[in-house]
């Protein structure tokens, strides 16, 4: 039992810090933003065609507007472009925003898939 605990501590200590290539983050961020905007418009269109507002759609679209209004995208992209080192660590704002966009894109896509008559 004792040796098992020791082993567990060893693994905890050994967790690596993830890093992402800067350029990759930059490009993906641009793409993600573009897609995010396009999907948001589609969602907005569906919503405008509905007689009754769907709570889920409203919630996501509010969040999208809120995020866009903060203009963090331009600021974060500018920052990522100016970073002098090749790798960004996992807590970088660029990585965060990309992750956030990715998550919102999945949500909007899921919603569109359920709502659109395809």
């Amino acid at each position, binding site marked *: 039992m004792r040796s098992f605990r020791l082993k567990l501590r060893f693994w905890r200590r050994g967790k690596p810090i993830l890093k992402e290539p800067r350029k990759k983050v930059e490009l993906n961020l641009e793409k993600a933003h573009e897609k995010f905007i396009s999907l948001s418009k589609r969602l907005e269109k569906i919503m405008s065609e509905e007689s009754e507002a*769907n*709570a*889920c759609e409203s*919630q996501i679209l*509010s*969040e999208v507007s*809120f995020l866009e*209004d*903060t*203009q*963090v995208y*331009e*600021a*974060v992209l*500018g*920052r990522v472009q*100016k970073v002098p080192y090749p790798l960004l660590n996992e*807590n*970088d*704002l660029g990585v*965060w925003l990309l*992750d*956030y966009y990715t*998550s919102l894109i*999945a*949500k909007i*896509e*899921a*919603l569109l*898939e*359920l709502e659109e008559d395809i």
Partner: protein
Amino acid sequence: MTTLLLFTSMKEGTEHLEQIHSYATLWKGNKTNDMIQFVDSFLDPIEWESFDPWEDHHSLIIQNGMTIFIGWKVELQSGIIIFNSILSQETDISKFLNWIWSFTHTSAKYWDELLEELIDQEEETISKIPIDITNHHIQIDFEDRGTFINKVTQFFQDNIFAILFSPHVLIDAEKMEFEVLQEVSLNDLEMFYNALNSSNQHIKHFTEKIVFWLSFKNYEDRTKEIQKIIKLVADLLLLDSVPSMAILAKHAEMLSNIDKDHFLLLVQQSIQEFKPDLSISVEDLIRMADIVYKDSQELAFMIAGLALEFIFKDNSLDSLVLMAKTISHWNTKQMIALVETLASQYPSPTEEQKEILTKVYDELSKDISDPEGIESIANAYCTIGRQKEAVLLRLKQFDKIEDETDTFALVEVIKWAIRIPGIEDKELAEIIAPYFLTAMETSPAGPYFPDQIGEIYEYLEKDQKKILILAITTQIVKNIDLVPILEQSRTLEIVKGFLKNKNDFLDLVAIVNAKLHELLMEEGKESKEIVKELFSYIETRRGSKEIILPIIEKMLVTTAKFGSVETYTRVLDFIKTMELDIKTRHRIFEMMDLAAKNAVSFQLEETNKELGIQIYYDILSFAIINEDSEILAQIMEHAVQNAIEIDKREAIIDFSKGLFTFSQIAGIQSWVGKMNELMEKIVENGKVELSKVIFHEIIELAPPPNDKEQLIEKQLDIASKIPDYLSPDEETAMWQNLLAIFNLQQKYDEILETVERGYHAFISHNRPIEAFHFLIDAINVLDRDDFDSLEPKLIDSYLSVIDFFENEADSKFVAKTLYNLFTELLNHVSKHLSRLNEAIEITISELIIRYIKTKDVKQLEYANIFLTFVIEKIPIEETLPILIKSFDQIIRTRKKFDPKYSLFNEFMDRLRFLSATRQRREGLKELRKILYKFKKAASKDNKIKQEMIIGIYLIGSFYFQMDCDFDEQCKIEIQEIAVNYFEAMIGLSKKETGFTELIHELYEKVRRSPSEIRTIVFHLDRLINSYEEYELLLAR
């Protein structure tokens, strides 16, 4: 012969003896099967209930020609049974009685002592003592062994009838005692005594034989014979040396039964020395003849002859019937002799005599089978003017024909019948008709039958028997197929030869021609001459529609059957030139219908079969719809059947529509049943698609709702038998149609029943989605109150859909379908919330399982959307526990299986859920937790890390999503959180830069007013842009 049986129930010392039931037995004397059987049944405790081993028993019985004594002594537990022949010698009787005496007077103490006494018994010699019987109660007392032996011997020899007619005879130590039946008088007993002691050997012999005969009957049967026996013995006593024929005849049956040989001897003797006797009864004589016949035919004939003499002499004709009845089962020779005798006796019978003779011949002909006898009786019938009976009698023998010679004989009889005078042609035609058919059917191949027909027609022509000619011709034409195939046309040609050019038979010739036309067509050749004759005939008789219509029918059927389109068209053209009233037109339709059926059934080539379809179109071409709709409806049913037969798709559809249309016009209700039968037939023929096409075509014609309902029911019925007969959409449409029909008629019970049936049909076809939609449709046509009962079913069907999708690989499709159904479910279920919760939980679990299987994060996003949707639709308080449970499951699963699922994204997911469920307090807790983590990480590195900027976004985002603007408590708490967060940042800002200044600025803002938290996110770009400077400064 006397036989003794000793039996005992004692076991000691009897082991070596024969055991019968529970008794040891010892035989002395010869034993017969009758004796063994008697003992066996007597000692059988089940069979012989009257014997009680705990009472003394002494009785005498007569059975099977034996006098039997049965004795039993209780104190000895032993008994005897003694058998003696009923008419035995005195010595045997003496032995028998001595044993009885010894037994009744024994002093033995044990069974073996009794045995010794019986074996060593002294035998008393006999000297008879006569007994006078003065009373029905008879008691004979015994003083000693001598009187016992003598009295009883005398009694046995002279008064055995008294014992025979007594129910029970007792013999004990002192007396013999019994009661004679009252039916037997004392005079009768005396008469029996006299008969037994008669000096006339015949009388004595028969009386003894009577005793013997009676002894074989049981007591019951014996008493039934009393009166007969008394009369017989009385008459026997009248016999003198030559036996009287009258007495013998009167008692023939009994005497024959009692002693047949002696009886025959007496009969013979009485005939040889016959003396006329007025007391002789003719009927008795006839009966005696019949009795004697079995043993001596010669003697029987002599008696019958004697009887006949009496009949003729006394003119007692009535007795002839009995004579005939009797002789009818003797041999044929005797019957013929009788018939000939009667014919010569009555050459010109009076009406009265004719009647009697008819009865006589009827009797004689009842069971006769010999042809010679039949002919003789038939001729006899003719002599008394009974020709019909004569013909029937002769023909009757051909009811069953076994070989060709019978046929020849039958034809001869038919020829005989048509030539005898005195019978009406019409009657004769009716009588011979079935036999004529038999003759046609059984005639051998070759010229025999046509030749015979020629001969028959010669007779008929000679005797001018028009009615018979008509009947026989019609019969031949109708049944020509019974004649051997090669002789059919020849036979008809011979008939035609006789009839041709005779004005009286023009119509008959046409009938023959029509049949000949058919026969020749069957052989593959159409005779132009016959066709010409037929058209010439119908043209000539144009005015007599009733006469020519059968010919036209025959022509239509023949031409259709054998594909002669040209002749068919000519017939049709002729029909069109006729003046057709409704009745005739309908008759012609029926003929054409028949012709069409023949075309389809008989034609081998497909192209010719199509004539069968063309005929129906021809019918329609000259039908007058308003007048003919009823018959057209009937014909269209056949038309559809024929079209199915030859697989003419267009015709099937046309005629089906015709069936519907004409039925509607004619107001025929039964059309839909017929249509459905046809549908089934079409499906049986493998034309599944066609059945549906016809269904839709008819539905297009807008049948009445009830009919439409039946049509739909049929389609559903077929679907229940043939998997995939209807696609899911089609099946749904069918059920919806049914609902619509019932809804239109406001038949709510039917609607509910249909919903039930439809639902089960879909489920049993593994179509839960359709079942679900169907329920929704049903709910939409029902009032709110009515569909409460459907809610659980709706949830069930939704859950069935989830099960149904278990193996469906297309997860997107599954989610979308479930989402749509789920939407409907939430819109329609309002009362069964616990079941609804179950559905929610199972749905989320299903999506989670799909995520685990596919690692497609969208499955979980779907799950989140489902939850948000539920929150929107259902009162939150009803479902919150289930929602929280399901949401936690989603988050746990995501964290477990997705390593990239960040702290931020988890928080955002929680924030969205908590916002939707209005759980601000929970939200604040989550916010504090994540900000603490950011602060802790920054403290560790002792600097403001980038993620702290994300923290500011989270605070702003929380304020916005939770609508803190409208909740003062929320404002206070978020302000506190924000202030703390900014203070932590300020605490970590070691260098003065634009970035730290901005932090201060924002800090001041939120400290001043919680509403400012709403705006802090709009400074994030500045914070991000200035962070680089802060970072660089720290790096230095």
